[in-house]
């Protein structure tokens, strides 16, 4: 019984810790997005990233990255570290690996919703 309680407590702790961390990662990721991405991917007609994605997807997908529900951390990493179209890649002194993971958490937060 004691073992079962221990496992239960462990699972509960893990569940809440994971949730707390996930929530924090999303919040941190939003800060990364605001610092590095919004200048081109904001919700105004004047940001070139949003305008480019509107032209690319023609309404089939949201032009705003923050409204997408189909992104994965892997594709976000690919874009940030390899660049895409005229967007250059970002160095680790700009967005480090931990921040990139947070950004991935933020931009995938709505997946499945």
């Amino acid at each position, binding site marked *: 019984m004691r073992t079962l309680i221990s496992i239960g407590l462990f699972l509960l702790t893990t569940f809440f810790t994971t949730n707390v961390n996930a929530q924090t990662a999303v919040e941190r990721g939003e800060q990364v997005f605001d610092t590095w991405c919004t200048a081109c991917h904001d919700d105004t007609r004047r940001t070139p990233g949003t305008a*480019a994605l509107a032209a690319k997807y023609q309404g089939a997908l949201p032009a705003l990255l923050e409204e997408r529900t189909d992104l994965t951390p892997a594709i976000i990493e690919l874009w940030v570290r390899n660049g895409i179209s005229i967007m250059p890649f970002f160095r680790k002194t700009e967005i480090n690996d931990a921040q990139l993971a947070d950004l991935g958490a933020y931009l995938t937060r709505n997946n499945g919703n």
Partner: protein
Amino acid sequence: MATLPPGVDSSSFESALTEFRQAIGSEWVFSSDEDVALYRDAYSPTWNEETELVASAAVAPETTEQVQDIVRIANRYGIPLYPISTGKNLGYGGSAPSYSGSMVVDLKRMNRVIEVDDRRNFAVVEPGVSYFDLYRYIQEHDLKVWIDCPDPGWGSPIGNALDHGVGYTFGSYRDHFASNAGMEIVLPDGEVLRTGMGALPGGEWGEYKYGFGPSVDGLFAQANFGIVTKMAFRLMPEPDAHYTGTAIVHRRQDLIALVDHVNYLDDSGLIGMPLWGNRISGFGPMDPELAALVENGGSDAELDAYAARSGRGFWSVQLQFYGPEPTVQANWEYAKQRISSIEGATFEDGPLYTFPMSDEDKANHHHRVAIGVPNMEIFSIGARSERNPSPQDGHLWFSAIIPRSGEAIFKAQEVIGKIWKEEGLPYNAFATPATWTHRCYIMITGLPISRTDKSINERSMRAYNRAIEECGANGMGEYRAPPQFADAIMDAYSYNDNIYRRYAEKLKDATDPNGIIAPGRGGIWPKNIRDREGRA
């Protein structure tokens, strides 16, 4: 992808990396292929080719003292260094070194705004500070000064100034290096030099830039005499008003008189940046009738008749006025009176903006950089859009300084247009100059870059090299360029058997005997590389 510094074997390089790690922390020494690849030029014209400029590694110091340590270690091992600030000089080399095998000194972590003074109107910053960062700092502290920013706001005031970068507001503020008011530099031997009043212990930066004796500041821009770790900039106090008025003339030859009037207004301190445009073709694809006229070498009379039919005019200049509201209105009235001497000139009044301005109004301003608000809107030109459904992967900027006259603009259109046409590249026959740098006109045009189609890059490079030569033969020289073209441009500045380069290289050899700092930057090579690679 990473490559060893020329002349340094792998075991020495590993020893050097160990010393760099001890000096600044292993987290900030990047040597894996994956990490070093982030220091490629995203718009490289030689992407994935043998000749692509690539780094051996990168180091990211946080303090001036760490930069000194890096320079001293590099001297011991003979490792060339290439400093970058925010690394966003796209179209002019990006974050890649000018000599393959150099170690990039990434100054992004030196990101402190040291001081902004809105009583004496200056700022002191480190190289990793971006225009966005400086603007944010000024807003958060409710300071009544403007910055002068280039089109992309993610660049560094220091990095931009050191590449003779430019902006949009008033007078000499637009010439970012001219706005320098004191610098701190780590020299090639690791010593720290301060210029201006900073050379006086306890002296204050921000106003007088010369100090006493020779002014050596210019050696640290677009060159390789040290690593700049702090810099002061003169700032413009927030004006009461910004007014924009547009003058339009209707015949091709009217450009000559209009430029003369604008020169008078500019050199008298009455206007900010004049924004030239052509009304006859506008922006985007040319009307087929006009394109046919251009193709067939249409006469001025034919072009003027087309412009008259279009009803839009031939040339326009948008004038910027800054200051008290009555003053900007009066100066615009004076400009109109003066330009009215050109027969048929017409005018568009306004808009008028007043300050302080809400964030919402700033966001809606028709040209935010004209009021010192950094943004990234310029990328809309190259990014995918309805007008540009198949964007290129990047571009090279060809930027030639021309005299400030209508005749010189016509000449530049002819010289550059001929090359572009022969190379099968689009060129607007009515291209007008950028006037970012105060009292200078720049004929700038982008050349496309592809990561997958080598022939596009080869054509762009061929056109670029031809333009250097043919513009040079007509008295037009580049003010700034990607590193692949630095030597050819320096070759063109050939007065008295290239004394300009020979003198710079004499100074280089004396102050940087190991050739550590940015070999090749500005077309200046240290003796060790000149000897080893047989460079003249």
